[in-house]
């Protein structure tokens, strides 16, 4: 077991290094220049000398290996450096957005769980009935609806609905307030994106719950329990659901990792100042230093979540360790 964990940990190193290299190269392949945008962004004449100075000041003229070295050592020592665009420490820039993204991810996961587990269970119990079909349709629709469009529809619905109901249009807040300062204001902003994305992520979890449960229901001990004459409700709750939960938890965990960095489009729709928008902005601004560290954070969350799930699985099922 220890050997397995150590192997997996060691394997994460080339992944992270490869990701760092990939991001580093990709960013520098994008045509354009942060200094050009800054000095000539509004169509002003950008004096080549001034552009050169600006490049010099933010370290763009350093040799590539120096830039890469700075990036990697900064990452390893957690001294992330400064954003090329704002000059603020990257830790501060990311920290600001991290809170929001984390909260949306948690809320969306909660929404997903609240939808997935009851629906998946019903669907499995009533396999191949109209209820099953209805649930499956509902959950596939979750994958099919673009969550940004769902977002647009939610905002539109709120504006039109409140206008019709109260005579005054209500719009969710457009700036983040900490849940500890103003829980209601916080909730009234973030509940909508959480629902829009949570519904989407419930789809996979619903299907997982359904099929895992179906499999467990066919197992001997469930049959035994049934044969003993236990109530169906108890069989499901006490025996089947508990054993079917593992793959469901896995799926949800992996999705949580995705939610931390992948809400690029939804954040645009709701004007959320999260990691996804920071990514888009920093790429468009050619803010290399910030983009690099941001992507590495998202990749790190991804790799670590995968790692933990794999190790957890190996612990449960020794066969995996040797394959």
């Amino acid at each position, binding site marked *: 077991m220890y050997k397995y964990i150590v192997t997996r940990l060691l394997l994460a190193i080339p992944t992270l290094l490869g990701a760092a290299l990939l991001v580093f190269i990709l960013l520098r392949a994008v045509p354009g220049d942060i200094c050009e945008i800054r000095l*000539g962004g509004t169509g002003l004449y950008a004096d080549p000398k001034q552009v050169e100075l600006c490049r010099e000041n933010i370290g763009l003229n350093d040799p590539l290996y120096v830039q890469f070295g700075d990036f990697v050592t900064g990452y390893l020592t957690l001294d992330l450096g400064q954003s090329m665009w704002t000059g603020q420490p990257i830790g501060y820039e990311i920290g600001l957005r991290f809170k929001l993204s984390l909260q949306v991810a948690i809320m969306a996961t909660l929404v997903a769980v609240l939808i997935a587990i009851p629906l998946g269970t019903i669907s499995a119990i009533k396999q191949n009935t109209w209820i099953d079909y209805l649930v499956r349709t509902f959950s596939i629709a979750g994958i099919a609806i673009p969550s940004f469009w769902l977002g647009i529809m939610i905002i539109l619905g709120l504006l039109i609905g409140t206008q019709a109901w109260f005579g005054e249009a209500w719009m969710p807040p*457009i700036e983040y307030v900490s849940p500890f300062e103003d829980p209601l204001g916080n909730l009234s902003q973030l509940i909508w994106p959480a629902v829009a994305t949570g519904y989407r992520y419930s789809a996979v979890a619903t299907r997982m719950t359904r099929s895992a449960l179906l499999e467990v229901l066919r197992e001997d001990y469930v049959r035994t329990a049934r044969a003993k004459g236990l109530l169906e409700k108890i069989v499901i709750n006490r025996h089947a659901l508990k054993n079917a939960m593992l793959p469901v938890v896995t799926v949800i965990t992996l999705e949580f990792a995705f939610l931390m960095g992948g809400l690029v489009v939804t954040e645009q729709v709701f004007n959320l100042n999260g990691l996804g928008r920071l990514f888009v902005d920093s790429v468009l*601004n050619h803010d290399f230093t910030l983009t690099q560290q941001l992507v590495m954070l998202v990749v790190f969350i991804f790799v670590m979540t995968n790692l933990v799930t794999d190790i957890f699985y190996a612990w449960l099922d020794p066969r995996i360790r040797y394959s």
Partner: protein
Amino acid sequence: MRFNGLKKAAMAGLGAAIGAGFALTAAAETPKMGGILDFVVAGQIPSYDGHLETTFAMIHPIRPFYSLLIRVNPDNPSSPTDFVCDVCEGAVPNPTDDGKTYVFKIRTDVTFHNGAPLSSKDVKASFDKIAFPPEGIASARRTFFKMVDSITAPDDTTVVFKLKYASGAFIPAVATPFNFIYSKDDLDKHGYHWHEKNINGSGAFMFVQHQPGAFTEGKRYPGYHLKGKPYLDGFKAIEAPKMAIRLQAIRGDRAAIEFRGFPPKARDDLVAALGDKITVQESDWNCGLYFTPNHTRKPFDDVRVRKALTLAVDRWGGSKYLSQIAIVKTVGGIAFPNHPLAATKEELQQLAGYSTDIKASRAEAMRLLKEAGAEGLEFTLLNRAVDQPYKVVGTWLIDQWRQVGLKVKQDAKPTGPFFDSLRKSKDFDVSMDFNCQSVVNPLVDVSKFLGSAGNNYGQYKDPLMEDLYDKMNREGDPKKVRQYMRQYEKQALDEQAHMGLTLWWYKINPHRSYVKGWKIAPSHYLNQSLDNVWLDK
């Protein structure tokens, strides 16, 4: 405290006799103290250093923290010539020494937010940083001041600008809203990069906090030199990159105003939904939207093809319809519309593509294309991936060209790659192009059309235009200047059709009616000190 007295009187009037029309009017006209102004901004702040930056996204939230030497008159911001003193005393000085010397008297009651008094040495240090930045320090508007020979501060209250030659472009350049006055002590103590991340101004508001990507907060500066101002307790500039959000924010009263501009359809929707809770201000906008053919690419080296491109564009029709969905409206030549130097409607109609008979123009365009062997030409229009007005006008333009048989694709690139294509790789057929300036100053603004200009991307050489531009700028007689301007315009837009003008931008700011005291200017950079804004709530 004259002001407070007035306010009390107004309030008393209001309380005593609601029906009294006079009292009501007085109450409506008298600025009320207090309140926080929430407004939305489309972009992000790159740094706090105005001398370095060029975007309105930093002017809107940061400008209120600083004072300028002079500024456009906040009560008459639509005038291109009406400037007033900010930290200087009295009126804007007239030049002496054949227009080559300007002497500014500096007020003695101005203090920075850290308590230090502002004097002439601060003004000198700030303008030195802008006009003569030391080695290694970037300045975005250095070229604005190429006529300046020296800046001196003979005593605490005097600043003298000596020019190399007389220039009408000097005063507008000084009034540019990016020319924040910094404290010399800060520059000496912390160096020239300190202001990128720190703020110590003498403006109407003091910096509270900036959360990158989210908002900027300011609070009232009690020691502001214009007594009784500002009226607001503070402001909050909320970043909202999507126009839909900015609109909805005003719709749902999450923000009171946006200072860049909305298309008319959005204005109409807001007015229809909110009635008199919305007030609309509109103005011509000192931004022109052009298309620039790449003269080094075939067949755009052929003047007939370039002329056909401009002939195919129905400007008058576009003004009628396109103006409903995009932030453009006014048909104009190269100079800011309605400026004394701008072409009249009759003069415009002499130019290719400005005829009201679009059928004839298009027929002529197709004839020229045929003659040049470029019938049914296929090419790509490079555009900036910003909706308003670039992409909307680009989509319209492609349809205009479709009507003379041209097959055009659009390639909208984000700002970085867009400028890279224009300036470095120059790998475009025809590009959307623009010229957005703050203070209206056609003599300088039209330099955009010179093949030699740094912000001209057509890659052509036209000695005649260089010559005309030179003559125009050295000419003292306004009539003759105007004549040169016409010749220059004819050469740029018609004879050589170096570039094509689509429409001038049109600024529409629908805002919550409780926002008072803010007046629209012909530029989204101007009149953003917020010291005279108040809330009627």
